[in-house]
């Protein structure tokens, strides 16, 4: 590794020395293309974040793709109904790796104010792995921008040689729930989500944040 002082000196001479990993991650984090779909009122805030006033383009994430094949990020913006959940999982399966999920708003996180509803999924993280949760009902556009920046930090910290998607044996398919007679079957994907075992885990998870 080249030390920071030498890197700085070289930069003054117009020579940029970075690792391939840094360049790779820099390219990915600067062009996170979200999948263009909204499920409820959070989508309005997402639209506001993409429009001129908040301008998601500053973070390279303004290119909303209308097909999952070209998308890197799924912003689950709104209430996921049980009828919609299989389609959300199917779309996520159709996205190429590396792919990320932002659960935007109380509904996408937990069902929110509609949690008691007979047709409301109690959190999209029961079926697909969520990278960033944004609380709020709906979250302000700034909160979505913060989530994008948080995701960028996560991408920067990823290592090429240890990523899941270059593992030939890793599965990228998440099982799509089927519509049963009373509920979705299964009601959650245990490989992605399991209910906490102890209440202390829930409270500790909030205070014990990794540094």
């Amino acid at each position, binding site marked *: 590794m080249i030390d920071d002082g030498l890197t700085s000196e070289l930069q003054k001479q117009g020579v940029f020395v970075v690792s391939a990993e840094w360049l790779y991650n820099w390219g990915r984090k600067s062009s996170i293309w979200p999948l263009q779909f909204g499920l409820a009122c959070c989508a309005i805030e997402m639209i506001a974040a993409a429009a001129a006033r908040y301008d998601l383009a500053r973070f390279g994430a303004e290119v909303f793709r209308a097909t999952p094949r070209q998308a890197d990020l799924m912003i689950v913006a709104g209430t996921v109904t*049980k*009828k919609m959940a299989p389609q959300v999982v199917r779309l996520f399966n159709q996205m190429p790796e590396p792919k990320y999920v932002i659960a935007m708003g109380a509904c996408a996180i937990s069902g929110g104010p509609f949690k*008691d509803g*007979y*047709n409301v999924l*109690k959190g999209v993280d029961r079926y697909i792995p969520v990278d960033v949760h944004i609380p709020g009902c709906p979250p302000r556009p700034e909160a979505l921008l913060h989530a994008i920046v948080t995701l960028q930090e996560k991408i920067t910290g990823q290592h090429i040689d240890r990523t899941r998607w270059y593992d030939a044996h890793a599965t990228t398919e998440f099982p799509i729930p089927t*519509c*049963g*007679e*009373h*509920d979705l079957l299964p*009601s*959650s994907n245990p490989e992605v989500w399991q*209910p*906490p*075992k*102890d*209440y202390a885990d*829930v409270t500790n998870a909030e205070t014990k944040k990794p540094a």
Partner: protein
Amino acid sequence: MPTIEQLVEAVRAAVSGAVIEIIPSTPAAAQPALLVDCEHAVAVARYLKDDPTCRMDFCSCVTGVDYLAKGYIEAVYHLYSVTLKQGPIVLKVRAPRELDKCHVPSLTPVWRGCEFQEREAFDLYGIKFDDHPDLRRILMWNEFTDHPMRKDYVPPADYEWEPTPHDDVLKHTKADGGIMPPSAAVVEVKK
């Protein structure tokens, strides 16, 4: 618009054999309803639509009401006249709660706009509308077998955990040996 009593007299004269009952509402709502028997519901609806003093050409709302204790379900139609700028007239038909007997006549042949709303009432309340052109579920998926707006509907137990369990969720969490917050004991004492 004729008063509700005049209306009932006129309908009885026009549709022979129709059994019509006035269901009073609260004084504040001031919206008494006409309860019509199933056999004559379509004829009464046609009369309300065609009569020159009523001209109920617009059915704005179709819904169901479940009377669990009384053992019946009502389909409720709210009718307005766009031509004469009047309304509403509230039309009700009643059927037993049992799923195999819960049949009422469809008014879609009279008001085309009832189609989706009757499908919704079928989906959520299990009211079967006879002679409906396309009676399928509209909100829930086709494989679904329950009718969630019925009072005796039991939702699936998909609360694996709840940060602040209460009421039914609290009982369910306890019964399943789920995790309990420290505050659960306090909640119980208050009850």
